[in-house]
């Protein structure tokens, strides 16, 4: 008879995730028991407090390194700390945007256009369910990149995805589109999760283990059935690549980015990418590293078509949110180039890129929330004409962020792209560098086109205007702008910090 052994947990190392989950539970309780009047302020404070507390705890354990924090299910190491901190910082900036209730419907369950919907809006109440949802998603995003077995990975994947499906459907304006986006996201997410699970099963069949270390040992030993390994890697990759929006698993991205409330899009675009790429880096760098020559070709193909597809299709977009969605697809391709490099430089560059890209994305969507007319946000690009003349300050910030996306020097985007491509070049993958640079050139076209539209086209008198942002939104915009410039001009300290910290433990 086996004796039950109590699991040993290192609570201090798990504390960041536990704090966020605890905060999420508190917000659920608040949602049930607090009066509607004080709920918005209370929920916002608890959410921000939780995130900041978790960030402080991440900082305190930054030098720790452990594989046994949760019985071998998670790894606490340099990349884990960096990615968790990135997710938390992006979450704080994202919550600043989410705090503007103007974007959210009041009762998500009401039928669009119905009497109940109108009544709920007229009641003047505010939606606060978004806070617990955000915290649960953040907890999932923090777990995803540190999980070291396939079961934990799958749990994390679902914990981060389910709240996002709901959040995508909360838009106040164009509710049908928003709900359609949520449903699409859910269906396709479920579909890809199935692939992920299927892949996990094959890998278990190959190695007899669900832990990344076990799979690594099996690959090193070379005793298993290689067909199982290949199918396992491919299907697991499908699930992961779906989350980052790589072609051809990207199709949800434009629809969801466009349909979701813009603050949610901002948070999702920035933080999900960090979490998913964190998981990809860990899995491919630690577990699959000895099967490099098997997965390198498929990821190379995916990276190339992702970069090219994202950049080329973005050119013909007429909607700013869809354009940014395709731009995020292209960036997923650039990031894959860092994964494929499979060297220390590639890891460092990817982490830097994730942070820089996440920050710039949040800032860009934050600006999108400001451009409105009487019916809500204006996302039609043609109506952004002349914005630079009416609101030079906001337009300048947006232009800077676009230049960062395009990878123009003196912005963080340049440093990110440069380090990613030099890492890829170092690893001998010249093809991907050439395609990457060419796609960047194509991508620069549509970023600069928006700048030209804003600054060199006469404004049309159609009621489009930039609203005065709330103090929190302003904080997000200004800090993202400052970080983008700072990392572009003075990246060395940050790069050094990453490269001295980021080492996977196996």
């Amino acid at each position, binding site marked *: 008879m086996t004796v039950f052994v109590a699991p040993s947990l290192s609570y201090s190392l798990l504390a960041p995730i536990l704090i966020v989950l605890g905060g999420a539970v508190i917000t659920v309780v608040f949602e049930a028991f607090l009066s509607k009047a004080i709920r918005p302020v209370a929920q916002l404070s608890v959410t921000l407090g939780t995130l900041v507390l978790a960030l402080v705890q991440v900082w305190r354990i930054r030098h720790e390194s452990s594989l046994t924090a949760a019985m071998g299910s998670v790894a606490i190491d340099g990349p884990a700390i960096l990615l968790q901190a990135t997710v938390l910082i992006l979450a704080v900036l994202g919550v600043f945007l989410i705090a503007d209730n103007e974007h959210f419907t009041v009762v998500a369950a009401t039928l669009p256009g119905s009497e109940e919907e109108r009544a709920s809006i007229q009641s003047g109440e505010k939606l606060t369910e978004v806070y617990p949802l955000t915290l649960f998603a953040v907890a999932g995003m923090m777990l995803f990149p540190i999980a070291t077995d396939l079961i934990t990975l799958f749990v994390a994947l679902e914990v981060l995805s389910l709240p996002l499906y709901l959040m995508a459907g909360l838009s106040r304006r164009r509710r049908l589109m928003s709900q359609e986006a949520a449903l699409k996201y859910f269906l396709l997410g479920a579909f890809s999760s199935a692939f992920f699970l299927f892949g996990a099963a094959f890998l278990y069949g190959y190695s007899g283990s669900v832990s990344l270390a076990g799979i690594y040992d099996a690959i090193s030993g070379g005793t298993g059935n290689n067909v199982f390994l290949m199918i396992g890697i491919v299907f697991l990759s499908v699930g992961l690549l779906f989350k980052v929006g790589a072609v051809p698993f990207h199709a949800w991205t434009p629809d969801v980015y466009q349909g979701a409330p813009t603050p949610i899009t901002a948070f999702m675009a920035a933080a999900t990418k960090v979490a998913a790429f964190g998981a990809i880096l860990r899995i491919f760098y630690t577990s699959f590293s000895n099967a490099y020559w098997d997965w390198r070709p*498929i990821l190379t*193909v995916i990276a190339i078509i992702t970069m090219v597809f994202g950049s080329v299709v973005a050119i013909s977009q007429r909607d700013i949110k869809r354009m940014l969605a395709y731009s995020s697809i292209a960036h997923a391709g650039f990031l894959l180039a860092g994964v494929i490099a499979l060297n220390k430089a590639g890891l460092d560059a990817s982490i830097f890129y994730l942070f820089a890209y996440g920050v710039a994305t949040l800032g860009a969507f934050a600006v999108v929330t400001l451009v409105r007319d009487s019916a809500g946000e204006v996302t039609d690009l043609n109506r952004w004409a002349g914005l630079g003349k009416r609101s030079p300050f906001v337009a300048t910030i947006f232009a800077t962020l676009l230049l960062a996306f395009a990878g123009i020097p003196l912005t963080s985007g340049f440093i990110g792209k440069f380090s990613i491509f030099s890492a890829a070049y170092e690893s001998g993958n010249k093809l991907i560098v050439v395609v990457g640079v060419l796609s960047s050139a*194509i991508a620069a076209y549509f970023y600069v086109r928006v700048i030209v539209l804003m600054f060199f086209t006469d404004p049309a008198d159609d009621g489009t205007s930039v609203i005065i942002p709330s103090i929190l939104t302003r904080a997000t915009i200004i800090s993202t702008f400052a970080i983008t410039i700072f990392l572009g001009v003075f990246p060395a300290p940050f790069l050094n910090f990453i490269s001295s910290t980021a080492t996977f433990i196996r």
Partner: protein
Amino acid sequence: MTSNSLVYLIALPLFGSAVLLLAGRRSDRWGHILATVLSGSAFVVGLVQFAQMLGRSNDQRAVTQKLFSWISVGTFKVDASLMLDQLSICFVLLITGVGTLIHIYSIAYMSHDLDRRRFFAYLNLFIAAMLLLVLGDSYLNLYVGWEGVGLASYLLIGFWNQKPAYATAAKKAFVANRVGDLGLSLAIMISFATMGTVSFAGVKEQAGHASTGALTAIGIMLLIAATGKSAQFPLQAWLGDAMAGPTPVSALIHAATMVTAGVYLITRSNFIFDAAPTAQLLVAIIGAITLLFGAIIGTAKDDIKKALAASTMSQIGYMVLGAGLGPAGYAFAIMHLLTHGFFKAGMFLGAGSVMHGMDDEVNMRRYGGLRKFMPITFATFGLGYLAIIGVPPFAGFYSKDKIIEVAFNAGGIKGITLGGAALLGAAITAFYMTRVVILTFAGSKRWDDKAHPHESPALMWLPMVLLAVGSVTSGIIFTHGNSLQNWLAPVVATSPAHEGELLKPAVVSILALVLVLAGVGLAIMKYLRKPVPSEAPTDVSIFTRIARRDLLQDDFNEAVFMRPGQKLTEVLVATDELLVDGAVRGVAHITQSTGRTLGMTQTGFVRSYAMWILLGAIGLLATIWVVTL
């Protein structure tokens, strides 16, 4: 030796320029005073340095100051450092000394100009840049000053840019200088490529190991740079037009200092030219051509400033010729540069004084008999005149005769040709300078009654007097006991001037004097004995007409460079629009339509999205299967 005070030489005038430009109209009332004081302070710093230098032994005199590490890329390191040695101190004193006098002169000369403050700001900027040029310890540092003086020159030539012709003159000077600047930057690049260094000391050390081909290339590039800045053949055409600038500018920049930068560059690079005889010979030839070219143009000009400009071109030709004669000539080139700085600046200020009294009239045919109305101007101008034509014991006699003598002593056909040209040039110089003096100060009055010629105020004549003193005495001082030659010996290798002596110094002097007298006599016959028409006669020989048209220099440039250049740009623009832009537009068009086509995969139906995912998974499996097969 190092010194901490070299930087003040540059910093003081630079500070003045910055204050005047940034303070704007607020400094209108005191700006010119500040600028003059700062220029004077720089002169004082220079004098102190000079005194300290005199106190050290001859091989210890050079001092350096490192300001900061400028460029550090791999093994390529350039410091922003200053170096003051026996050669640069000559220039420092000339620039700050004459510069300060001209600042003082300009206070009165520009007193009616609304933009006087801006004028002084540019003057200070020029002083700072010129000092950087002569103080830089590497070609790269020199280049910064080189471009700086180009900028100041451009700004000051076009100072009255409300007149389109003046703005065009500024542009012309700028473009011609750009051609020369290209030579300098190429020289810097070649020297870095072949020797791995661009500092004077480094290049001097490496010059012994470098190939003659590389050194010749560097030498020719430096020569091109010098012809641009110093208005030497074939880049001489801008100097005449540069007289559009206010007269003090012509005196300071386009006579005494900036235009001699080319001579400085060649002398400073003596280690290159001494190791590249072909380049050195070219320098001498260019000098000889230009000294005749300028002198001939000078005979045909009625505009007093343009006549003086042609004379400047010719005199710099002498200096370049001297510098092209190698170790025997460097010291005399510099000596002529310094004496010329005195007498030519003095004469330009004299011309300015005449214009000041004659309502800005520049046509000498409208002058005549002014000596009675402007005695001081006449006296100082006259002393400068005696110096330039080389009458002993005035300054020009010593410096110019030495160059002629060294030219003859170069030996063989080379010596006879160069020496002959220099001798002929001296005769022509005597002719056209006598013509200027006669037309302006002698003869009968030819101005109309509206003009009221009068002597200029003391602020103007005082600098003229001081410069005239220099014109009289500097030659004696520099040659007394070969003082300048010995002074410069550690910087430029000197050699005994009398190897293979062709003509004895006394013979050269007598020959030159005879020819000068002939020139003076011819001018007196032509312009003093006969009445001078107040309009230039039109029924003149083809030679006069060509000389009046500046020996067709502009026609040549227009036909050979400008028109073909315009055609070339037209063709290039058309090619750019059709081929390059066409290709770009085509690519953009293809990309856009590809984007639209690919965008159609975005149907909006979940079923088709799911199908993409499925197809993607199958595709990946297929890929991996093919790869691992």
